[in-house]
């Protein structure tokens, strides 16, 4: 049974529609991530679930109850904000107890919950400090602690790692993953970072301009994107997309004079073909499906990225594992594709195969 269900949820501000018709079900204990570029409506959708905004249309159900007209606290949800939103005039303990004091829980119960959360988040040495005396990561943990003590039906996270530096972000990401395992709680998480989405989620909801593009597990979205948008949003570096037409023998890639053979005839209506950087190999010129010139080489130690220009196409990205010492700038090479791993897109952007 779905713990949280959205039916036909819409949101507009005046005449501007922010969220189109959204239907979604979230199961108990699931880690769901709303992901999308800026302006896609993911934060707005989260705030609708939280009850901080009213829906213009549709209904929201939590545990089978229609909560569409209830405020945030009545929905039994907790939220962790991007800017932490800690109460600056209260201590860490005060921040974590505030919601429970409002709910008039007995003092002993409040202390028990706060101490338990502090232990989980390793905040015990800081309980009497005010937020300004804490580091970014500590403040983040206090914000999470404030959410935990409410023992909510679900946790909502609004881009909680955006304000942290890269190293701390990785550390906190792992903390959140462990928290999810330990608490076995339902979590809805918003981010624009598809790496966070891929690594943390049980289920990813990709949003673009207020509409859901695709819902599925990370690997489903990676291997079988439903349209061009999802294909290019998920996966880093981005999937290479080239204009192509069906031709005898496979797919003729525009501007390159090359053809990629396909195991079966290409369906009519194919307008673009996509290949992920790791599914293309660099071979000597003449041995590949198309030929090009290496423009830029990025060496990360663990991987090498070669940016290749082919005919009229700039910046095809190719990934090679390890340090590909033999690749140099200006080198003329051939590119070989893996036909079974290609993604074919029609004129409407939807995946054909």
């Amino acid at each position: 049974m779905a713990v949280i269900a959205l039916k036909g949820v819409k949101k507009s501000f005046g005449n501007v529609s922010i969220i189109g018709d959204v239907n979604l079900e979230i199961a108990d204990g699931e880690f769901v991530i709303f992901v999308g570029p800026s302006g896609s409506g993911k934060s707005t959708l989260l705030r609708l679930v939280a009850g901080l905004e009213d829906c213009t249309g549709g209904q929201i159900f939590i545990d089978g109850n229609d909560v569409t007209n209830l405020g945030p606290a009545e929905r039994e949800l907790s939220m962790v904000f991007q800017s932490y939103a800690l109460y600056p005039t209260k201590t860490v303990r005060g921040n974590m107890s505030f919601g429970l004091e409002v709910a008039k829980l007995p003092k002993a119960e409040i202390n028990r919950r706060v101490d338990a959360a502090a232990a989980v988040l390793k905040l015990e040495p800081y309980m009497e400090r005010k937020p300004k005396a804490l580091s970014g990561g500590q403040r983040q943990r206090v914000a999470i602690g404030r959410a935990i003590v409410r023992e909510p039906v679900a946790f909502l996270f609004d881009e909680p790692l955006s304000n942290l530096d890269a190293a701390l972000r990785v550390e906190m990401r792992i903390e959140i993953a462990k928290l999810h395992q330990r608490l076995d709680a339902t979590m809805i998480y918003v981010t624009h970072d598809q790496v966070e989405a891929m690594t943390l989620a049980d289920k990813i909801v990709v949003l673009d301009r207020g509409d859901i593009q695709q819902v599925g597990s990370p690997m489903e979205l990676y291997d079988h994107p439903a349209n061009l948008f999802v294909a290019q949003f998920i996966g880093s570096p981005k999937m290479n997309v080239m204009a192509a037409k069906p031709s005898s023998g496979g797919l003729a890639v525009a501007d390159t004079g090359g053809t990629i053979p396909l195991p079966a005839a290409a369906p009519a209506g194919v307008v673009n073909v996509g290949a992920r950087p790791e599914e293309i190999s660099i071979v000597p010129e003449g041995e590949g499906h198309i030929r090009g010139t290496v423009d830029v080489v990025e060496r990360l130690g663990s991987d090498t990225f070669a940016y290749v220009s082919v005919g009229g196409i700039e910046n095809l990205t190719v990934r090679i594992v390890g340090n590909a010492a033999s690749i140099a700038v200006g080198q003329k090479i051939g590119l070989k594709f893996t036909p079974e791993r290609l993604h074919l897109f029609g004129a409407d952007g939807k995946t054909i195969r």
Partner: protein
Amino acid sequence: MAIVGKSSQSPGFQRNRLLMTAVLVVYFIYTFIPILYVITAASKTNPDLFSTFGLWFSNDFKLWDNLHELFTIQNGIFLQWLWNTFYYAVISAVGAAIFSTLAGYAFAKYEFVGKKFVFALVLGAVMIPQTALVIPIFLLLSKVGLLNTPFAVILPSLVFPPGVFLMRAYIDEAISNEIIDAGRVDGAGEFHIFSSLAFRMLMPGFTTVLILAFVASWNNYFLPLVVLNSTEHFPVTVGLANWYASATAGSGGNLLYTTVMAGALVSILPVIIAFLIMQRFWQGGLQAGGVKA
């Protein structure tokens, strides 16, 4: 050719600096001279007041005598006036600051029908001079039967449009919407959020409005003049003006000049002390740590 900018080392900058300092010194002297006069005049006898150089003390230093005169004349009415001024100012200041903060918070953090119009009204009210309002206020108070009571001075002073304007701007900056949202998610009602979360973060702004309203009330002359007519309700401003009028009236009058000057000196001291005490509340940065900038 590379573009060269100006820095604090350039001669032009130093020249401007000196010019600015000179202007400020002149302004300081202009502001300070009347205060210097009050100090020196309060220490002279009446004949000396009119015969010696205004900006320095005479040979006869009579400050303590004048002060004694000030507090004993007419059965110590000055002390009554001082007390009146004080409690009118404190109650008006606290009330004005609270109302301004409530109104400023509403304008800053909520959307409601007619908000722009109501705020335009407040802005308009800031621009209306007090003298234009005193007669209507007099008539209002007269109808309600509150003339010649402390309420006649305090009630109109609770309305402080500049305070609303200031607090709205301050609250807009000082309190992030996410903290309010966090309070809502925690289950607090709107007023609870205001009183236990937001209010403490507003102290610098609140104190500023408190001081401004206190000084405005302390210095208020025209309103009490119009709405009060018994001497026991007078604030110091009206009382001293009364003495001055009787000192200059027709034949001889009372020689109260030095007493008036001593009264003026005493009346400015509490405001200066209040400013100095409140200084530590002027420090901002109360929101540091709550929200990541």
